[in-house]
């Protein structure tokens, strides 16, 4: 069974229908990149996947858990889904180390000691081994985002969701974050990445999904989507992005 199954997903805020019947399946180890104009509902879609938003209609099944089923323990589902936000959302009152170990320790996944060992290993992976005791505010944006990735990974998730992880960063910081994500993809992590980094999408994605107006307009292999766009909307979107 696919890792993520989304069927006929609708989401409205009052009269404003943001998602208008989305269908998507993501396989194990697959990396899906989502592109599309701002306001098209990409963030809303990602947030529906871990229940930060409750869909108005439709079905979401993740690793076998049906989110619309009242009996599903949402906290358990969330442990399996790591999420990385555009603005990092690190906990400013906790050190880098404490940010990473908070959830595993609180949820009794690991003892404090093993969590510390895991955290050090993760910090090494994201290239911040020397920042364990730093406070988030003393780090650059790129460093903070890498800590945020390490924090999500500490729960040993089976799926990672990224919502424009580099768009709040200074250009010179973007590379380091993307490198970490590439490493993750190479290690076989299942990932859904909302991004404007077309280079990254081309290189890493197994599939690129183009969203516009609350619907998936087109999807396929990166080279098909980028080099042979079918719909005029996608052509229009790519023109704009590439001309920037």
């Amino acid at each position, binding site marked *: 069974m696919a890792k993520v199954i989304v069927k006929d997903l609708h989401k409205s805020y009052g009269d404003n229908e943001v998602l208008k019947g989305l269908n998507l399946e993501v396989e194990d180890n697959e990396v899906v990149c989502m592109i599309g104009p701002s306001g098209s509902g990409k963030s809303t879609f990602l947030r529906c996947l*871990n229940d930060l938003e409750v869909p108005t209609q439709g079905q979401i099944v993740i690793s076998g858990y049906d989110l619309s089923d009242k009996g599903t323990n949402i*906290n358990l589902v969330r442990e399996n889904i*790591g999420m990385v936000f555009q603005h990092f959302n*690190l906990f*400013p009152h906790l050190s880098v180390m404490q940010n990473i170990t*908070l*959830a595993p320790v609180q*949820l009794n996944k690991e003892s404090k000691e093993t969590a510390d060992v895991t955290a050090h290993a993760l910090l090494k992976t994201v290239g911040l081994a020397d920042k364990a005791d730093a406070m988030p505010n003393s780090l650059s944006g790129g460093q903070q985002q890498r800590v945020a990735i390490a924090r999500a990974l500490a*729960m040993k998730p089976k799926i990672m969701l990224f919502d424009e992880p580099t768009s709040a960063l200074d250009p010179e910081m973007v590379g380091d974050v993307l490198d970490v994500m590439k490493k993750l993809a190479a290690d076989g992590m299942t990932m859904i990445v909302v991004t404007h980094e077309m280079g990254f999408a081309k290189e890493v994605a197994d599939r690129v999904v183009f969203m516009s107006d609350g619907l998936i307009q087109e999807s396929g292999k990166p080279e098909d989507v980028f080099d042979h766009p079918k719909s005029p909307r996608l052509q229009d979107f790519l023109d704009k992005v590439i001309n920037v």
Partner: protein
Amino acid sequence: MKKWQVAVVMVLATLGSWFAFASTAQAKTYTIATDTTFAPFEFQAKGGKYKGIDIDILNAIAKKENINYKLKAISFGAAVQQLSANQVDGVIAGMNITPERKQTFDFSDAYYTSGVVMAVAKGSSVKNFKDLKGKTVALKTGTAGATYAKSIQSKYGFKIKYFNDSNNMYNDVKVGNSAACFEDYPVMSYGIKNGIALKIVSKQYEAGDYGFAVKKGKNAELLAKFDAGLKAIKADGQYKKIVDKYLHSSESSLTGETASSRTFIGLFTQNLDTIGSGLWMTLVLTVVSIVLATILGMILGVLGVMPGKLGPAISSTIIYIFRGMPLMVLAFFIYIGFPDLIGHGFKIPAFVAGMITLMLNEGAYTGAFVKGGFQAVDDGQMEAARSLGLPYWTAMRKVIMPQGIRIMIPSFINQFIITLKDTSILSVIGIVELTQTGTLIIARNFEGFKIWLMIAIIYLIIITLLTWLSNWVQRRMN
């Protein structure tokens, strides 16, 4: 149970047992209320003990008739209210027997007869009632003097200003804010003899009888004993001795203060015990109330930001009610109104009532800024915590609260200082805290300026210390 849960349970249990004790107070001991400031009938002598004609008569009668009683000094108005609300068993406070009062109370035989006089400032040109036209007259609420002045108000065309306390009334006349005051003759002449710069300019009007009062239809046995005892002490000469002692001697011989102790330092050292116990009460009340208000405020704040509609609705309703109600009204409601509602002789000790009052009022203010503090934490924090799989309450405790509380620290410090100052309002329900201590000391030595200065300085010192302490805590946390 977690540590904080244990703490909450303990506080509730303590409160509960207090109520239980209060409602099962021993049947044999009567609680008799008196005024705080009505020399020579009642006043506090050095060291905090009450003295005066009323007090000594009551004591002499009680000895003769074997009455067990506990004296409770509160303002006259509160004493009368509490008697009608069944909070006390009797009142002896230079209380005039009037037809109106007889509707609600049963009175003993008259134990003293006195009339109302008008007094003006020493240098005043006001000589009679006609001179009062267009001027302001100071009155003490609920007294015979007030009733008499009210009855002649329209005839002589003066304005009226009310006080709860004789000394404040005298002072208003002394400094010239009011042109005159009306007071019972023995009280006025005693005060003047002891240094109040007023003079009596009228004869005695509306001579009236003072009586000991119980609630109508209640405590008939106590009343009968009082009457019998009064006869006995009149017969054996004790009564005359008591009255003479207070009407024909000077203040200092009664209070134990010497003239040389009227300097600022002298007054301070003389009254150190009284001030100290008032200060202690203020501090205890402040600390206990701050702890309770903080607990309540945190609960209200957490409810206020809870998902769903119920929590926020409960929180904002409670905040709305208790923030909107003046502290004094709330204090009276809890101390007098609430037991009245429950009935069955239910009583709340003044300290507990004061504590609950402050808890509710300061707790509502605290709740409002705690809620605001939590709301000021970026929404992304809760989302990030939840996305890691942390349950709502864990996310609240580990992520939102620590950040919110940091934002709130200046508000907490501010609230602590306000709580400390607000304890002074609780003097209205008879709690003898620092402010009430000041009133009591002035009631016997009339040194208004020096004593209030002393009290003000003490408040400033504690507030300064509290601010330092808070700043230190704040630095530690950052």
